[in-house]
Structures are given as C-alpha cells and as structure tokens.
C-alpha cells in the first residue's frame, strides 16, 4: 500500500463523512450517523494490511471501516439514505453496513458484540483450512462489555487468528475512558496472554505497520493480537449532538484533539500536486455517489420483511 493509497483512503473517509453529515442536515439521511471523522487512520491502516480473503467486523461508527475495505461509496451512501440500491438494500442503514463479497461480516450496533462473531468466523476459517485472519473493530466503551472479555478469552485459548482493534477515542458516548476503565485497556488483553500494543491511531502508516505484524502473527498460527489505537473523535458521538450540544468536552480539549489530523499527517507525505489530484478524484467519486444515491429508488413497503428468513415454510 503506497503513501498515496493510504492518503486516498483517509481522505475518502473524511470527505464521505462530511458529505454524509450534510445529508443528515438536509434530511436525506434519516436517523443520523456516528461520524468517523478524526479516526480515519485506523481503518485505513488496518485494512491496508489485509488480503481480499480476510474478514472484518465493524461498529456503529463503521463507515470508515467499510470504505477502507473497499465498498463502493455509491452503495454505502445509498444505504445511508435507505435506498434499494444500498449495500444492504436499505435494510441496514448507517450502523449495519455489510458486504460479504468483501469479507465485511457486518457492522454491529451492539457495543462489543462483534468481537465474538469475528472470533467464531476466524475459528471456522481455520477449521476449513483457510489462511485468513479476522479483524474486529470496537471502541474503548466496549472494553466494559463482558461479552468482549469473554471473546478475548476464547480467542486466546483456541489461538484464533483474530486481531482486536480497540479505537480509544477517549469517550464512550460522553463517558471519559478514565472514568470507565479500571486498570488499563492493554492490561486487560494481556491478562488473557494476548500480546497488546498501544498504537498511534492518528498515523495510518504506523497503524499499517502494527497491523502487518499482527496479521503475520495470526497467519503463523500464533493466535490473537490486541491493538489499542489512540485516537480522537473530531465530531459528535452521533449527529443528534449537533443539536443537543452536550457539554462533556472542553473547547481546548477538542482543539488539542484535532491538532493531529490523520488526513493532514498523511497528506503531508505527498507532493502538493499529487495530493490535489487525489482530492479532485475523490470529489468526483463522491459527486457520483450522491447522484447515484439520490437517484435510487426507495424500497417497496410491501417488501419490508423480505430477507427476514432464508427459508420459511
């Protein structure tokens, strides 16, 4: 993965999210989104270390993960707008983007739930003789979900090729991590005998390097790795905050958090003209995505329960 490719990914995610926020404001996206703005380096760096056969699970803040994994931005935007042409045919929305053809086993809206799903998928692949790894993304808030801790135990016991990527953005919604996590996040993983690393989550190249080592370890049959990627959420927990104006982060803190911007960090590694060309290319992609999504049909209410069962007598 080249410097330019990593830049393209973080920039694509950033601009996708900024445009999606506009579509929330204009009412084209109902229900709002959990913006990934500020955390782009993690999705970009992690997914750059994977092969097409690998699988990921994502979260409620998942647009970055699936874009980095290669989903078509047109289909993702159409999904956010609840259109039939969306990734999930408009049945999933912002918190559930899935594309099984790209190994995306779904974004999960229950905090910490996907870690055990990813662990099961990775275990199954190994049983089937496949040389794949699974990555499960989650936030610092998930570290207090018992089910996630159970998954760490299963993965370590059975040496499952799964990589646990904790995006520590400092807050579980509004709860500061210092008020929520006793001990340390990596210490919890280490307690299960899982190698755990603190990674600069603002630099895509650092994340890529750390993930590459974890992937090699998993493929070599050495089991899970845990990465705590330190990051900062530049925008709201959810777009409802834009109106609710919850008071839990000081202006100074937000300014400090935004001072290390993954798009700027990676962009600085490219010549100006090359960066401008990538930026223009992305705007064209997103213009096309907007046109595609806005022009796509809404699902037929008569098919509201289509896909509920694989088979029904």
């Amino acid at each position, binding site marked *: 993965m080249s410097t330019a490719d990593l830049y393209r990914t973080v920039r694509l995610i950033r601009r996708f999210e900024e445009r999606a926020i506009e579509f929330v404001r204009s009412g084209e996206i109902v229900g709002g989104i959990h913006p990934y703005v500020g955390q782009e380096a993690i999705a970009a760096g992690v997914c750059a270390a994977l092969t097409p056969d690998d699988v990921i699970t994502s979260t409620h803040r998942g647009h970055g993960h699936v874009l980095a994994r290669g989903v078509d931005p047109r289909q993702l935007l159409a999904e956010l707008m609840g259109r039939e042409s969306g*990734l999930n045919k408009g049945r999933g929305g912002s918190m559930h983007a899935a594309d099984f053809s790209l190994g995306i086993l779904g974004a999960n809206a229950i905090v910490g739930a996907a870690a055990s*799903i990813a662990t*099961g998928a990775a275990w199954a692949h190994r049983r089937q003789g496949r040389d794949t790894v699974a990555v499960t993304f989650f936030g610092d808030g998930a570290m207090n979900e018992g089910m996630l801790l159970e998954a760490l135990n299963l993965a370590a016991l059975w040496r499952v090729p799964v990589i646990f990527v904790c995006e520590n953005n400092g807050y579980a919604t509004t709860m500061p991590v210092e008020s929520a996590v006793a001990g340390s996040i990596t210490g919890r993983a280490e307690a299960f005998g899982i190698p755990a690393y603190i990674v600069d989550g603002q630099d895509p190249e650092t994340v890529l390097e750390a993930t590459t080592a974890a992937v090699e370890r998993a493929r070599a049959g050495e089991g899970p790795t845990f990465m705590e990627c330190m990051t900062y959420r530049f925008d709201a927990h959810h777009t409802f905050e834009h109106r609710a104006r919850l008071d839990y982060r000081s202006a100074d803190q937000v300014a400090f958090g935004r001072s290390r911007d993954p798009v700027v960090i990676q962009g600085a590694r490219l010549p100006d003209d090359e960066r401008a060309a990538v930026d223009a290319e992305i705007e064209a992609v997103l213009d096309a995505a907007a046109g595609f999504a806005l022009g796509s049909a809404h699902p037929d209410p008569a098919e509201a329960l289509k896909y509920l069962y694989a088979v029904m007598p």
Partner: protein
Amino acid sequence: MPKLSYLKAMNRALADSLDRDQSVFLLGEDIRVAASNLTAGLLTRFGPDRVLDTPLSEQAFTNFATGAALAGMRPVIEFQIPSLLFLVFEQIANQAHKFSLMTGGQCRVPVTYVVTGSGSRTGWAGQHSDHPYTLLAHVGVKTVVPAAPTDAYGLLVSAIRDDDPVVFFAPSAALGVREDVDFTTLAPVPVGVGRVARSGDDVTVVAIGHLVHDALSVADELAGHGISVEVFDPRTVYPLDLDGLAASVAKTRRLVVIDDSNRTSGFAAEILAVAAERFTLDAPPRRVTRPDGAVLPFALALDRAIQPDRDQLVAAINAVLEDR
C-alpha cells in the same frame, strides 16, 4: 421393535448430522463428557474439533457460533439449563435472527440451539425451571418443541439443516419418553408442520411438548366417559401450523390449549387469539397454563402446583363441552 428414547433420538440426530455434513459441529458446556447425556459417544466418534467444550461464556460462544455460521459452518449449541436462554437472548434475538434481514439477504445464520431439559427439571428451583419457548416465538425465531422421540429426531435433523437459526426445546419431562421405532424409518420432520397425535370429534386439545403425553392420557380417560378428544401437537411453536390447527378445529368446533408457558402473552394466548380471529367455535375456548409471572418454587408440591396438570385439563375440557 426396538425402543427409542427421546434423548437417544436426539443423540442419534446429532450423530447422523455430524456424519452427513462436515460443516456441522457441536459446542457447549461439558458436552465432551456428555453431562446431560445428549452428546454421549460423539467425542469418540467425531473428535474434539467437532465436539467443542466451551468455558462458561454463554454470550461469547453464542455469538461465536453466529460468526462460524456466517463463515459457512452449521453450529449446534447445547444449553443444559433453559434459563441460559435469557442470558443469550440478545445474541439469538438481536444478532443471529437479524443478520439476514439487516444485510439485505447477504448471509445465512444456520445455528441450532438445543435446550436439553427445558421446563421443570424437578427440584431445580426458580432459576433452572423455565420454559421460555414463547419468548423465542415472539421475536420470530423458529422454535420447535417436539413431544415424541421420532419427532425429536426428525425436528433436530431439520433444525440443523435449516438455513435460519432454530431453537429446539427438549422438555425435561419428555426426555425419558420411549417409542417403538423401526430405526430405518427415522426421517426429517419439517419445521412448521403439526400433527394430530390422536384423532377425535368433540374437542381439539392443543398440547405442546411433554404436555402432549398428558393430553393423550386425558383423552384415554375421557374416552371412557363418551368424550372424543382430538390432540393436536403443533411440534413447532413458530411458525405455527395454522392450516393443521384450522382443520382440527373445523371438525371439533371446540378448543382447549394446554401450555407450559406463563399465562400473559404465552403460547396458549396466541392460539386463542388465532381462534378468535379465524375459527368458528361452539363454546368459548379455554387455556391451561402456568400462572402469570410464575417462578417455580423449590418444594416439590409447589413446583407441581405451578405447572399445568391433567386435572386442570379435564376441567377445561368439561367447561368447553358444558352446553353440549
């Protein structure tokens, strides 16, 4: 003809499924030693990779099964305590069940959840004696509660082959039931199809799980009093065999339901609602259930007092036949 017990039939269904399809594997607590006897002999025959003992991490291993299913496996989880379903309700109702719709049909989640010994286990008290099949039906998870050994075999095989999540309740009070069976005739039983366990003309008794056997006994007893009882065993709680039920009630025009659920919003309540919407009855229908909000107390007499019994069923049948 050889006798086949309910539990042995389930064991045979698991063995046949493991033998037939390499993607099938079992997981659960203490299944290698077969603590419930459900998995007896399977470790030796199929090996530790396909008979997986799990730590006491029900939530994670239930989602683990979902992940394995998304990757092409057909996991079968054994829960030896019915109340564990409360612990993993999120993982079944909110995860496994919802993946197909939420992904626009991109995936299938063929997981089977087997509860070996549901309902009262006699002397196991409040937290080990629930019978929550109605909860699963309510959220739309395919739910089967077989009464007879051949149905236990056939529905377990079908549940494992089904491409959706299926919960299989094996009532504690049915595990010892034995049936004369020609083993060569054991076959899959389709999910969602009930059976007439005994044909009759005067009243339809809908009974589920172990209560089918109580209903059959009552039918025998009442036959001596000139009352002809038809016993309808839905076998599947969800989706319900409405056509089968309708055919029975069209014949008898009287209806009693006996159901080991709590009363409010229970399985019997659903049957009576269906009856009110669709059937023409000659008398108001009756239901025999656990009381509202029941918690099974420990002492044997109290445990029994909470469960629907034959005397209550006889009284209900007499009530719907009163004006005959």
